[in-house]
């Protein structure tokens, strides 16, 4: 049982880490701010979600597992809000480059 859980953890965390890689590549390579925004927030929030999922398999106490999920939900909410605000508010190019 513990071995199976360990395996699930390794799978989920590896997949999560891969999405961080994808997000970073997008942030570096995509041509303009809005597409970068798109690449970054989706990939990273998914990456964090998979990392959280992997760690939940290692948690024995319910409260600790819930706390991990809360961290992810808070990050999602913050990410969605800020992304929306950036897309609407922030000037795509700064005042002096």
């Amino acid at each position, binding site marked *: 049982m513990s071995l199976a859980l360990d395996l699930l953890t390794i799978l989920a965390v590896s997949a999560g880490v891969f999405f961080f890689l994808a*997000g*970073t590549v997008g942030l570096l390579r995509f041509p303009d701010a809005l597409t970068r925004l798109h690449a970054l927030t989706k990939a990273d929030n998914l990456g964090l979600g998979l990392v959280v999922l992997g760690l939940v398999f290692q948690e024995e106490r319910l409260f600790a597992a819930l706390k991990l999920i809360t961290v992810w939900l808070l990050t999602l909410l*913050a990410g969605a809000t800020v992304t929306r605000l950036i897309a609407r508010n922030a000037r795509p190019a700064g005042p002096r480059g």
Partner: protein
Amino acid sequence: MAEFLLAAAGFVLGMVALGLVRILWGPGDADRIMAAQLLGTGGIATLLLLAEAMHVPAAVDVALTLALLAAFVSVAFVKGSAGSEADGA
């Protein structure tokens, strides 16, 4: 398992480091705020992985705090960046 999680934490941190290059390049405030967000998400993932790898459950509380404060700082960044035009003094 601990070594794997520590390695994963190191890898995420490495990705964050690469993303920080975007702060250097900019060119706009939007990119810089995004890079700060990447840093927040990546930092949270790193903390959660460290908490499990080092058996420091308190690091999850640090991640929780960071998640809240990252939202707070990002909102302030966006508000400040958008508002700086309007009130110069």
